[in-house]
């Protein structure tokens, strides 16, 4: 199967200002790709290049096996802009129907069904929509024609938690039906629960692409075990993947890299009364990536 997105050396300069440099990335069918980076890093530039709103300075990009310039390719994409502008006296419902017609026909019932799921009021004039409602209209138009490829630029900004929950449920449905999603965010917590892979972009460059499951496995995790009687420190020393062990009477604190298997087996020899394991903080891991990258480039610059 061909990749949904195939970018090779994709570069965009706005005059002399760098928007995106040398992006090489494949997004596979059926995956949810989280595109992460601080504001101004090049996320929206990438997305606009994928949709032919702007044209690359250098490099090549194919979407769904074709050129994004081809209207037929864009018909198979659903897009939520990062800064969605909706205005005018037109009612949201009429605008959605218009978009549906241009995209080759979306049944009115489908629009109503999505409006119900997001609890969006479509009888409001577009210029009078609240920020949250605007975002809902944006999500409805992105999902309504059941596109093969969804591009969502900062989709959860302005959504209340209930709607956000519904949105994540819809993303999972999309994945289950084998469709592909590219979703940008500047907060990892928003994308980590649904993404298969996460790419990090900084200063116009893609600095890392990681599998979320693998990352979680690699993640550093703090653990605390409590026993019914004091335990010998020796039992917990030299275990594979276990670091910073501190034994204090009946309590053991440590840090594990990756799998907790060795620690659990060692603890099983005693009577465990209580166990605390902090969820690995992926944010922290990414921050480590970021700072490594910065130190790396700082070293290069000083050299």
């Amino acid at each position, binding site marked *: 199967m061909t990749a949904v997105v195939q970018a090779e050396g994709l570069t965009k300069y*706005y005059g002399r200002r760098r928007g995106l440099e040398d992006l090489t990335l494949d997004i596979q069918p059926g995956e949810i790709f989280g595109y992460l980076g601080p504001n101004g890093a090049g996320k929206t530039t990438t997305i*606009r290049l994928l*949709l*032919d*709103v*702007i*044209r690359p300075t250098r490099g090549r990009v194919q979407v769904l096996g074709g050129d994004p310039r081809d*209207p*037929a390719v*864009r*018909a198979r*994409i659903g*897009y939520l*802009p990062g*800064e*969605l*502008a*909706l*205005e*005018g*006296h*037109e009612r949201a419902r009429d605008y959605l129907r*218009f*978009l549906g017609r*241009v*995209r*080759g026909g979306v049944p009115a019932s489908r629009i109503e069904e999505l409006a119900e799921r997001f609890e969006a009021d479509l009888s409001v004039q577009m210029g009078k929509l609240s920020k949250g409602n605007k975002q809902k209209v944006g999500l409805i*138009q992105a999902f309504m024609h059941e596109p093969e490829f969804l591009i969502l630029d900062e989709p959860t900004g302005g959504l209340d938690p209930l709607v956000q929950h519904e949105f994540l449920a819809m993303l999972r449905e999309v994945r289950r039906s084998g469709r592909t999603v590219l979703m940008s965010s500047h907060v990892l917590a928003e994308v980590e629960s649904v993404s298969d892979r996460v790419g990090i972009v900084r200063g116009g460059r893609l600095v890392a692409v990681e599998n979320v499951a693998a990352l979680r496995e690699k993640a550093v995790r703090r653990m605390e075990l409590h026993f019914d009687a004091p335990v010998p420190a020796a039992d917990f020393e030299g275990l594979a993947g276990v670091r910073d062990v501190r034994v204090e009477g009946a309590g053991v604190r440590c840090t594990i890299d990756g799998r907790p298997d060795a620690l659990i087996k060692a603890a099983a020899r005693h009577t465990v009364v209580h166990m605390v394991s902090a969820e690995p903080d992926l944010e922290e891991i990414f921050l480590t990536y970021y700072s490594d990258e910065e130190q790396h480039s700082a070293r290069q610059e000083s050299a």
Partner: protein
Amino acid sequence: MLAKSLRDSRRTLVWWSIGLCAFMGLYLGVYNSVRESPEVYGPAALAKFPGALRDLMGLQDFLSGTGYLQSAVYQVFVPMLFVVCATTLANRAIAQPEESGTLELVLTLPVDRRRLVLQRWAALVVSLLVVAVVTLAVAWALSAALTMGVPFGRILAAHTGMFLLALLFGTVALALGAATGRRVVASAAVGVWLVAGYVVVTMGSGVDAVAWLKWFSPYHYYIDGRPLYEGLPVGDYLVLAGATVVFALTAALAFDRRDVGV
């Protein structure tokens, strides 16, 4: 797409039509009192104006129906307002939605960019045609009611010229908007070209140094054939229409190769 553009601008169309008709009504409505006071508005009175001002305002003859209709409606203000209306409508095609950010989503729809521009240009043509037909009906009705004695064919000829003039400037605004994405650029260019072109044709006609510039003034092709007096100036109007088509195609090509919204 076309229907949607028209629907979006229907309020603008209604208000412009009402405005232009009211303007014409005010000016034409006083024709009877003008006709009855030749000592105030007759040739002797007009002669008191400085020559340059007379040229600039196109003051020739207020007493005959044709002369008054030409001076009050077709000479300056109504064509100018018509051009402003066309520019406003043209800016709604590309520049305004680009500045407000609503164009981005539209561009990602499965519509070819060149087609999008041409469809929005077609909406401009239809919109202006609506305003032209409404104002034509009112102009004719008023002139008939006031027994100005101008045949409908002549009014139609003059009105057609006004429509073509407005459409040309509207298309220029659309082309500049499509090429730059900025309303200010489009409006300023139209304003400068319109006013400079008008001045060259009126005040400048006697000044050899600038008189030749009239060939670059759309207004020249509108006024030169004296349509209200002599009927449809086919050649002149074809120049206006031809230039319009060239600018429309330029708009489509310019927009097709541009980054939008950056």
